């Protein structure tokens, strides 16, 4: 299959692993930024196959996980309103707020719909002129262009019954925050391929230089990940700290220009708090004043009182300080059935990936 089986070939994977084994001389800690990468690593068992010197630290790049609790509570409040059709990506439905999740809002009578694109939500708004249609615009730079486009089109079409609850986050400020953290052990990054396909990799050059850290733009298939790791380890072994692109089939230096123009037009950067991590300056996008009419946070005045489960340590997991099984609640109070934090919910969350695929101390026997 095009672009799929080619990047899962076990023979080529073996060759890349051999190369990494041959060049590594001492321990290195490498963070894969994106939750999609974490999931692929755990699902394919790539971390089990690496030489013991190469440690993978799972990064904060799970959009569902870092969406702040007060924003989720806000979403739950808005979704519960009688006049609202609340549209969201599927992942968000099971993320726990302080009291409940969107699935429960739906079972209580809220009109909560799963859509695959914010543009589908526009269609829902056109078809239901007597309803308020709200889209939950969360995610990293990857989902942002389509969200920007939806708001832009709503403005063009004067679609007064559409609005968006925006909670966008940006990767580069998060990487800077991780490197500034005294607890961080990260020595190299696998940058998120999808984010870079939108934004390009130019914005990572100053980071690599300032923090003397190699950053390799990396895809999501097993061979992509191994190639990214091979390049990071080679840079570390050679004492280099550069930005490399190991995902050229999707990523260019400048990224997707029309997408960036749309983002620039609709959003402006703002401070943003990350669930489990805290506020990171200039790490998010909000709607520009020009599009304030479409801001669901302004349109619906809701008051929320948030309550984070005290035992959940997802913040440390998201910063790569703690591996999921090291949390005392992991697999006990906290399971995908009764998640305490978003990292146990999302298919990209590190805790869920470990719970689903890695609950055994010793490997499954296969002889």
């Amino acid at each position, binding site marked *: *299959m095009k672009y*799929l089986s080619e990047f*899962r070939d*076990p023979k080529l*994977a073996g060759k890349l692993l051999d190369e990494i084994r041959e060049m590594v001389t001492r321990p290195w800690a490498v963070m894969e930024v994106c939750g*999609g990468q974490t999931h692929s690593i*755990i*699902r*394919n*068992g*790539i971390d*089990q*196959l690496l030489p013991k010197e190469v440690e993978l630290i799972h990064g904060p790049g799970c*959009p*569902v996980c870092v969406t702040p609790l007060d924003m989720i509570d806000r979403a739950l409040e808005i979704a519960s309103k009688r006049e609202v059709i609340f549209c969201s*990506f*599927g*992942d*968000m*439905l*099971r993320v726990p707020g302080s009291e409940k999740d969107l*699935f*429960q809002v*739906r*079972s*209580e009578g809220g009109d909560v719909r*799963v859509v*695959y694109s914010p543009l589908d939500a526009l269609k829902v708004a056109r078809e239901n002129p007597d309803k308020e249609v709200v889209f939950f615009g*969360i*995610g*990293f730079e*990857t*989902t942002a262009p389509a969200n920007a486009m939806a708001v832009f089109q709503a403005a063009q079409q004067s679609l007064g019954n559409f609005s968006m609850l925006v909670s966008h986050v940006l990767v580069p400020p998060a990487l800077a925050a991780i490197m500034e953290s005294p607890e961080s052990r990260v020595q190299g990054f696998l940058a998120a391929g*999808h984010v870079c396909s939108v934004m390009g990799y130019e914005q990572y050059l100053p980071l690599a230089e300032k923090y003397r850290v190699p950053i390799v733009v990396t895809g999501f298939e*097993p061979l992509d990940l191994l190639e990214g790791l091979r390049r990071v380890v080679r840079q570390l072994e050679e004492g280099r700290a550069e930005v490399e692109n190991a995902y050229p089939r999707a990523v260019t230096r400048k990224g997707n220009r029309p997408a960036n123009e749309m983002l620039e037009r609709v959003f402006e950067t703002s401070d943003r708090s990350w669930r489990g991590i805290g506020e990171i300056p200039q790490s998010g996008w909000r709607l520009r004043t020009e599009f304030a009419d479409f801001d669901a946070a302004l349109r619906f005045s809701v008051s929320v009182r948030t309550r984070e489960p005290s035992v959940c340590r997802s913040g440390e997991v998201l910063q790569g300080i703690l591996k999921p099984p090291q949390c005392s609640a992991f697999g006990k109070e906290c399971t*995908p*059935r*009764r998640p305490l934090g978003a990292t146990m919910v*999302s*298919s*990209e969350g590190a805790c869920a990936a470990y*719970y*689903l*695929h*890695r*609950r*055994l101390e010793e*490997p*499954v*026997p*296969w002889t």
Partner: protein
Amino acid sequence: MDLSGRTCPLPIQDFPLVVLGHGGGGKLSAELVEHLFLPAFGMDGALGDAAVLQVGEEQLCFSTDSFVVTPLFFPGGNIGELAVNGTINDLAMMGGKPLYLSCGFILEEGFSIEELSRIAQAMGRAAREAGVRLVTGDTKVVERGHGHGVYINTSGIGLIPPGRKVGPGRARPGDAVIVSGPIGNHGMAVMSVREGLEFETTIESDTAALHPLVELLMESPEEIRALRDPTRGGIASALNELAAASHVSIVLEESLIPVDDSVRAACELLGLDPLYVANEGKLLAIVECEKADVIVKKLRSHALGEGACVIGKVVAEHPGLVGMRTTLGATRVVDTQIGEQLPRIC
């Protein structure tokens, strides 16, 4: 054992209302059955696809299933043949020869009679082809807005010939796990239509009555330990149930699991895992290891089992778990899903 005083050991208090996941065939569904229905009915013990009943000298199997699929019509079939084949398959998985079916219709006011006729025709055709008779039924109509066009319930009775013993609790370490063909086709066929997704090739549902395959397997009933049709929740959920019921672990070999390219591509696009996607015309067989190759050959001799192959084996370590050796040679756990599979954000 007196069950009259038994109360629900785990009140489902964190879900005061029914959520969609309670019908998803995963953990939430199982909890509802285990903690709410079974204690209320005074029942206990392992549940198979159908109840096995001793009536005089004969062993009967009895099963029921409700069909609420959206859309009603999809590539490869409609809700009608699904309702007939689904219950036939539940009977067949207990080693039964399906004989009679009942059908209950819940229709929504305003539903097209022409479409209802097409659904009924499909049911009649599927039953004839399967050699099963639809013998009793019921029709109710609910007000517009209180149903989704048509819901169908079918129940079925089958006869288990002497000498056949299959059940979810009979897998033993060393046994082989066989699947009768590529997985995930039904779920992705339905989802493609539901979400308006178009792919280069149309994915068709695999809906089929599987008792002819079971009859082939039952030529040597002593070689067959357990049978399952992996519907909702896919092969992952079915194998987890088998592993739990038999107190064994099942280990899959990822590279051996057959998935059509189109299904794999559709799953990738939506961020779904084919292991959890529904099938309506595939069976899983746990069989005696030494006979596995012969059994695969036998299955392949039938059109419904053309893609049959061994995908894993039963081991004693980690009872109740399903594991998998990945294509790259690492290992991971394959868990039951909680509720519905959710499409990913990006």
